[in-house]
């Protein structure tokens, strides 16, 4: 199952989140856009940590909590991203 959602942050940048689900587990996730984030190694670790977890608010929150101090975003915020994931969770439940 593929779900995606994008957002242009007001006064900020564009971000799109794409999630591939396999039996409720995140098989793959891509976060793309013209935002800024560093260090990119931590951003890659963030994506890796999202892969293989159950697609639930609790599991997503846990990963976000782990990386919130490790990655600096510009043009978007961690809260923008979390909001998109939350909307995707709702989208999944409706599907």
């Amino acid at each position: 199952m593929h779900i995606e959602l994008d957002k242009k942050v007001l006064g900020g940048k564009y971000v799109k989140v794409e999630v591939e689900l396999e039996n409720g587990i995140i098989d793959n996730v891509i976060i793309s856009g013209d935002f800024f984030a560093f260090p990119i190694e931590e951003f890659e670790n963030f994506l890796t940590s999202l892969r293989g977890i159950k697609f639930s608010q609790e599991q997503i929150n846990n990963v976000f909590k782990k990386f919130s101090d490790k990655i600096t975003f510009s043009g978007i915020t961690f809260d923008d991203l979390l909001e998109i994931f939350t909307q995707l969770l709702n989208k999944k439940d409706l599907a």
Partner: protein
Amino acid sequence: MNGLENWRLILNEGTAEYNMAVDEAILTLNNLRPRANVLRLYVFKPSAITIGYFQKVYETINVEYAVSNKIPIVRRITGGGAVYHDENGEITYSIVADVGSVDFDVQESYRKICSGILYALNFLGLDGRFEPVNDVTVNGKKVSGSAQIRKGNVLLQHGTLMYDTDVSKIEKLLLVPKDKLAAHSAKTIYDRVTTLSREKGSKISKQEVINALIKGFEKAFNIKPYEDTLDDEEKNLVKELVKKYGQRNWNFRW
């Protein structure tokens, strides 16, 4: 720190792969141990497109047009948007500096570095404005965009200054989302992007822009950089990194 004696100035023309490799090499080595801050001014030869690290190529670029016109596409290590680097109309700057000599706050560091561009515009007889997050505009239209990344205590910020870019090429090459134009109350790319020559009403030369940028950054940072070339350590790392920037699995990752 008084940086008056410390900054290096490196000027060059080269391919997109080479230019991106040099920026990454200097950032990497300056993060390994304290080294002089660097101001680079360079030209993409041949003209090329760079895309932000997080961008999807096919959602950002008209790849077919780029390929058929032999315009290379290279992914940067910095975020931000896609840029068309016109060899006859755009100068790219990059600054690699310890964060302390710029600003620890990311947004303020953009502002500080972009103040060098604003001074450069003044020297060219134009008034520019910094538009957060990362743009500089003249008469409300973009002439410069910048992108920053940090490694440890060192930042790399590189950005464009379009003095005579062929804007029609940008329109053909970059897929600008409609909502981005709408967010800037712009109907077409020509309402959103301009060049220094267009705003000045007369041709501004490459050398004039380079001289103005040097003077602009000197004023912004109170520095007097000395002209330099890459050292052997940098050259060796560049040689390795050029390979990465030439690889399809890097440039077309997404």
